[in-house]
């Protein structure tokens, strides 16, 4: 039988205490205090977070795993549109000031927990609106309105350099409108090369990626993805699993480290997670509970999904982490 030294050219180190997980990643060592062989390996998984205070679907999200925002939503039928705003601090959700104009399926992914834009969406009559509001960490203020009313739209960037694309007006039709936001006004941009609602986004307005979505009526979904650089859209490589209404990082993620999780496939929901490295989409650890129309926040290595549905609404939160951890090696 080969020895460790014959394979790797070195003996296993003996140490009195473990190196940090990050420092020891990929190494094997012998801990002379515990008399055990140990290693540090990267482990990626979704774990449960505390539940939303108000279960709901069609919820918008943004921010990071430890500073996320959940906005608006729907529970039903019978119709119950929610204007609730909740903040997540990495441990629990707390109720904040409601949206000024109650709606659901407003723009997702545009901004942070303390500077978030909720544009468009459906009013309680399920009709698309042009309303746009800014959340500053404590209250909502109306901004100038979108040029084109729509719901199920997707957002990139920040509250002073934002972009919304796609959406429905009304569902199940999809639109190819694109509008940018400078902190004051919404300006119509040239049409996008896709006509899709409920797609996933990552990154700033001038260096983002857009993936999936529903081009037609339910339950259709697409695997297509696109990148935007400056103002130019190019076609990217396809998702492995076609879906719409996924959880995703939006402003919290980047064009070269994007992610999306779950969503509505054809015909059922999926647990699949995929990561994008700027070139291709690869599968990652699955979420525990299949769902769509949920909120999302965070980075590719520290992600967050919450709520979602079916329409009856979920409260469950899941946190993704991809971190190195020290493990004791055993023979089992």
């Amino acid at each position, binding site marked *: 039988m080969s020895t460790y030294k014959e394979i790797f050219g070195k003996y296993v180190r003996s140490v009195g205490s473990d190196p940090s997980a990050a420092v020891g990643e990929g190494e094997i060592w012998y801990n002379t205090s515990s008399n055990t062989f140990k290693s540090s390996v990267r*482990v990626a*998984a*979704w*774990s*449960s*977070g*505390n*539940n939303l205070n108000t279960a709901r*679907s069609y919820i918008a999200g943004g921010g990071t795993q430890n500073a996320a925002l959940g906005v608006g939503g729907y529970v*039903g*039928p019978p*119709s119950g549109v929610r204007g609730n705003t909740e903040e997540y601090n990495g*441990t*629990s959700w707390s109720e904040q000031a409601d949206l000024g104009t109650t709606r659901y399926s407003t723009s997702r992914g545009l901004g942070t927990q303390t500077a978030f834009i909720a544009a468009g969406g*459906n009013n309680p009559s*399920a009709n698309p609106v042009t309303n746009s509001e800014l959340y500053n960490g404590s209250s909502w203020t109306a901004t100038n309105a979108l040029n084109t009313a729509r719901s199920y739209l997707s957002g990139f960037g920040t509250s002073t350099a934002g972009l919304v694309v796609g959406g429905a007006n*009304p*569902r*199940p039709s999809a639109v190819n409108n694109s509008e940018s936001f400078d902190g004051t006004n919404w300006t119509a941009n040239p049409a996008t090369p896709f006509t899709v609602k409920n797609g996933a986004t990552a990154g700033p307005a001038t260096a983002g990626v857009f993936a999936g979505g529903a081009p037609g*009526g*339910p*339950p259709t979904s697409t695997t297509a993805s696109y990148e935007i650089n400056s103002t130019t859209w190019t076609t990217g490589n396809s998702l492995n699993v076609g879906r719409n*209404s996924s959880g995703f990082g939006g402003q919290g993620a980047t064009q070269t480290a994007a992610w999306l999780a779950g969503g*509505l496939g054809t*015909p*059922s929901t999926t*647990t699949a997670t995929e990561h994008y490295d700027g070139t291709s989409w690869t599968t990652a*650890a699955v979420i*525990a*509970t*299949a769902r*769509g*129309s949920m909120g999302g926040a965070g980075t590719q290595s520290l992600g967050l999904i919450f709520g979602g*549905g*079916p*329409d*009856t609404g979920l409260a*469950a*939160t899941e946190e993704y*982490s991809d971190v190195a951890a020290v493990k004791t090696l055993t023979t089992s």
Partner: protein
Amino acid sequence: MELFMYGTATNTGKGFFTHQDRQDFFLGGYPGDVWVIGKNEKGAVWLALKNGVEKTKTEAQAIVDTEVTAAQTAWDLMSVEEQNKRSGRPGPITLP
């Protein structure tokens, strides 16, 4: 050999299932607080610690079916106009 066990347990939030749990055994959540759990010692201990109630696959599927049927019925009672504005009729779910 059966790969899964089935049970009901209420998701209490943070710590209900951990990063380590997801490494130790398969776990999938379904409507009606139904959980499909990888059938090993750690999976069985997890269900017990969560005050879960073990079910047969048939029992668990029946709980899920009841939830799905209720959601489908609610969907069918909506007008076509309302339906067109939402994500679609909930589809059937078959437990693994």
